[in-house]
């Protein structure tokens, strides 16, 4: 949990213009906020999040502090006053009920503001009060201010405040804030226009959660819990979101408890902790007891499947984790595993996996130069790591699959779904609906029925052929038959149950005394859709679905005319042979 600003942490600064700026808070540095001014980073380190600061023009003489914390009452002052005055529910009206002030008399022209541009610039240089003085001057010299309705006056004030107030709010950089920041201020295309509401929905439908205490669980269940497969083309945002849900995103997540345990003197603890943070990481790493092996977690882990040699998870840097130079103390170091599609599907084609570096005996190692020895260990470690990660991934039994990809999602599901354990959930995000409708169609009931019938047909053919050869396995289809099936159906539609497609949109409102309505504009662009389904294990026995649909009395259709039984709508009264 984010309780205070730690040194060298990334934070988001919300500016009066509603923009957010992501900033690494390095001790003893200066943070620049463009036209809103600048301040020394030390003045926000150690302070709690969500406070709004005002940049003062003249620093405190004693300690040079130039920030003032704005109390909540002051932030809400205007609305609280408006609420006090008759709850702001009624408009100012004349006796006959018509609004007293309307915009009927207002003529649109620039001459109403008597201050010139030059004068405003001069004011900016001279005046203090963090912009409040400018705004009051602007109001004073506005000619038709008294004609404005209270609504338009409020709007005017807001506009001016956004322009001139020297304020900022410090927000903890978490997935939600990063998502909104990327959507609004950065290229939304980089994160596939993944909206904040979709992040939550994706995680829920994927059933992504902490896998529990590994040490305790391993004794009871043989299977490690909480292993998720992720395909992420959003530069690491989806991985970050899932890691957040699994409690492995924030390096300081575990620390807070100590702070909380001794509630008598939490401040002292905090101070100590902050002191620890001060130390450069190199120092602390020397006296750490044991180095946790890279990608070694058995449960509560994320396995990222990436198309290129290296995954693109650049956004994780905001959470203190860089793929190129992983920090060993970060939980992702142990719990985040990466594997390329090539390594998954054809591991022997990848030399890192298949070519074991020669083992050099200890005696020989001592004679080597230190950098050569280091290189040798690095190579050995990398080989063992890739071996274990690839073998583990190929063994499957994952607890969920989360996909946000620019590739064809059906190609991802074709290879990834068989790796899931039964009852595991699949959630696929796509900015537009078409890839997902194709996907839904591939898993349609009609496809399932046709697939099962076709497989049965092939089996029977096989049975006939093998009747002369008694030792042939009857039930197992050979690869050649499977490939015939796959050529027709592309993927096995019987592995997923209840494919559902949905979209979700959040509509923000403005709630102010007497002025409540949905916000006038919001971001368009990609709508965002989620495909969800459950991995199931179809039985190998021949069974038929029993359907007693009350309205239409249809006999369960026999196998000779499989195609007529198909109806994608009702979904149950179809023959199922497996």
């Amino acid at each position: 949990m984010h309780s205070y600003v730690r040194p060298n942490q990334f934070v988001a600064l919300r500016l009066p213009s509603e923009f957010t700026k992501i900033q690494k808070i390095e001790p003893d540095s200066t943070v620049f906020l463009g036209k809103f001014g600048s301040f020394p980073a030390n003045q926000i380190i150690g302070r709690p999040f969500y406070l709004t600061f005002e940049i003062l023009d003249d620093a405190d003489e004693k300690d040079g502090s130039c920030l003032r914390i704005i109390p909540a009452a002051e932030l809400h002052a205007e609305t609280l006053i408006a609420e006090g005055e008759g709850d702001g529910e009624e408009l100012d009206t004349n006796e006959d009920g018509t609004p007293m002030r309307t915009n009927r008399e207002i003529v649109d022209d620039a001459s109403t503001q008597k201050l010139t541009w030059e004068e405003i610039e001069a004011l900016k240089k001279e005046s203090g009060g963090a912009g409040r003085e400018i705004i009051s001057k602007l109001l004073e010299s506005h000619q038709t201010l008294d004609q404005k309705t209270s609504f338009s006056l409020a709007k005017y004030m807001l506009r001016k405040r956004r322009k001139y107030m020297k304020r900022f709010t410090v927000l903890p950089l978490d997935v939600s804030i990063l998502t909104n920041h990327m959507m609004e201020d950065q290229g939304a295309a980089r994160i596939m226009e993944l909206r904040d509401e979709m992040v939550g929905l994706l995680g829920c439908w994927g059933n992504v959660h902490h896998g529990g205490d590994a040490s305790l669980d391993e004794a009871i269940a043989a299977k490690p819990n909480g292993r998720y497969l992720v395909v992420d083309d959003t530069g690491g945002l989806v991985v970050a979101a899932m890691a957040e849900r699994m409690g492995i995103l924030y390096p300081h997540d575990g620390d807070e408890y100590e702070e909380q345990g001794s509630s008598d003197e939490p401040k002292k603890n905090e101070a100590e902790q902050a002191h620890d943070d001060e130390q450069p990481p190199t120092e602390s790493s020397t006296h750490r007891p044991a180095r946790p092996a890279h990608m070694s977690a058995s449960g509560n882990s994320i396995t990222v499947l990436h198309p290129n040699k290296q995954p693109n998870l650049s956004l994780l840097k905001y959470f203190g984790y860089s793929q190129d130079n992983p920090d060993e103390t970060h939980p992702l170091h142990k719990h985040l595993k990466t594997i390329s599609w090539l390594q998954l599907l054809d591991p022997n084609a990848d030399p890192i996996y298949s070519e074991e570096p020669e083992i050099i005996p200890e005696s020989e190692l001592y004679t080597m130069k230190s950098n050569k020895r280091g290189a040798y260990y690095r190579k050995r470690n990398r080989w063992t790591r890739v071996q274990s990660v690839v073998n583990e991934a190929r063994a499957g039994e994952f607890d969920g699959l989360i996909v946000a990809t620019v590739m064809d999602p059906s190609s991802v599901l074709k290879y990834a779904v068989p790796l899931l354990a039964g009852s595991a959930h699949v959630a696929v995000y796509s900015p537009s609906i078409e890839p997902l409708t194709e996907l839904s169609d591939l898993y349609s009931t009609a496809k399932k029925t046709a697939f099962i019938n076709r497989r049965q047909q092939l089996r029977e053919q096989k049975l006939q052929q093998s009747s002369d050869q008694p030792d042939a396995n009857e039930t197992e289809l050979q690869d050649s038959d499977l490939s015939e099936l796959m050529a027709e159906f592309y993927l096995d539609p019987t592995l997923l149950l209840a494919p559902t497609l949905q979209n979700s949109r959040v509509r923000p409102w403005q709630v102010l005394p007497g002025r409540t309505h949905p916000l006038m504009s919001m971001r368009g662009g990609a709508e965002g859709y989620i495909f969800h389904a459950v991995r199931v294990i179809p039985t190998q026995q021949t069974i038929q679905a029993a359907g007693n649909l009350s309205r239409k009395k249809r006999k369960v259709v026999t196998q000779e005319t499989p195609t007529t039984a198909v109806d994608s709508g009702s979904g149950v009264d179809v023959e199922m042979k497996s």
Partner: protein
Amino acid sequence: MHSPFLTPGSRSQLDNLALLQLRRDQTIPTILQLHDEKNGGYKEGKVTNTRFGSFPHITLCDQPWGSQIIASKVDTGSRGRTQKMKRKADELDSSTQAEDKPSPQTPVAASSGFLHLLYPTPELWTASLPHRTQVVYTPDYSYILHRLRARPGSTVIEAGAGSGSFTHASVRAVFNGYPSDDQPTKKRRLGKVCSFEFHAQRAEKVRVEVNQHGLDGLVEVTHRDVYEDGFLLGDPKTGKSPKANAIFLDLPAPWLALKHLVRNPPEGTESPLDPTSPVYICTFSPCLEQVQRTISTLRQLGWLGISMVEVNNRRIEVKRERVGLDLGNIRGTVVFPKSVDEAVERTRALEERAQLFRATQNQSDGDSTPAPKAENEAKGGQQESEVPVYKQGRVMTRSELDLKNHTSYLVFAILPREWTEEDEKRCREKWPSNRVQEPQGPQKSKKQLKRESREKRDLQRKEQSQPETESQKE
């Protein structure tokens, strides 16, 4: 006790909740048991009867999750009707069956019918739970929990447990290990949900559910009117603070509960909030008037970042729509020309046939009429076999019929940590405000840094070794 919601393992277990999925929106939650106390009388022990067949629990236990389970032949007709039997022979049978109850018989597989055995998740549970009040559905709670920053290790207060859908979703979000009595975890804070419900019966039901679902210790249910008595665990005045990081209020008048959710309660009781973290709140109200009062109270109590949204979710149906004259007589096909060309061709063909018909009529010989018709039908039949039905037509999407237009308005707000003058002073001492180092030149590369540190190390070593050598000289 393990919860199948959180750590389902790989197989279904006895006495645990399992979901029997019949079709997409039809799921039966059931506790797997060999013997049924209430409904005894089946040869096979406890049986769940569905429209797709009967499923003795003995066929559902210890199966891999996700398995497709085949229905069994169960004598449903004769059981339990000992008084009003229609046929006496059956009555005799059933009475003898009842006697050998302790050992359930091995069921015989039926010829048709199946279901899928799934482990429960908050999503599937929400779709199948017994309704007691308005349910908070997945699109809403997913967004709420995301905005509330309910993460592993957090503590969530939920007021208005209602039907328990949010309870299950939030416990999954905060779960990071089961509490154990013998070794209290010092280092890690375990996630917890504190659920308050003012309706005695509903509170009891939630409590039973929590127990059945293996969530004891992770969810603490309190029967309480939170407007009056606040959010402390145990005694309303002197109880333990839950130290909540996130709060969800699904109450008719959330503004009445807000007075208890402050950093320093006026009566001197302990605050239910976590003193070391910001606290996130969400209220869930269907009406705008409720929202306005809530927000007004939040402002007065100094909550920040107040925002209100509504979530609009829609499920989309994907279907192949078949329009055309040549697609044959399959259910769901619209027999209508699929294009202008087809329409023209069809009309032309009809016209030609009519002409032919007229011509033959004129000849007053009825022999040649059937020929063109037969030809036409043969053509249609041929095309049907060319493209399999699942590839015919065009994939179309539309919203599903039962659309939820409005669930509730969600109000979010944040209460930062308390920050006193002394805290600020201490912080200023530790982080001197005016200590600023100007960034020196361009950033150094990793190599450069390494070289520098090596040089530094060498220098240190030299310094260390020098006095030694000097002392040796002496």
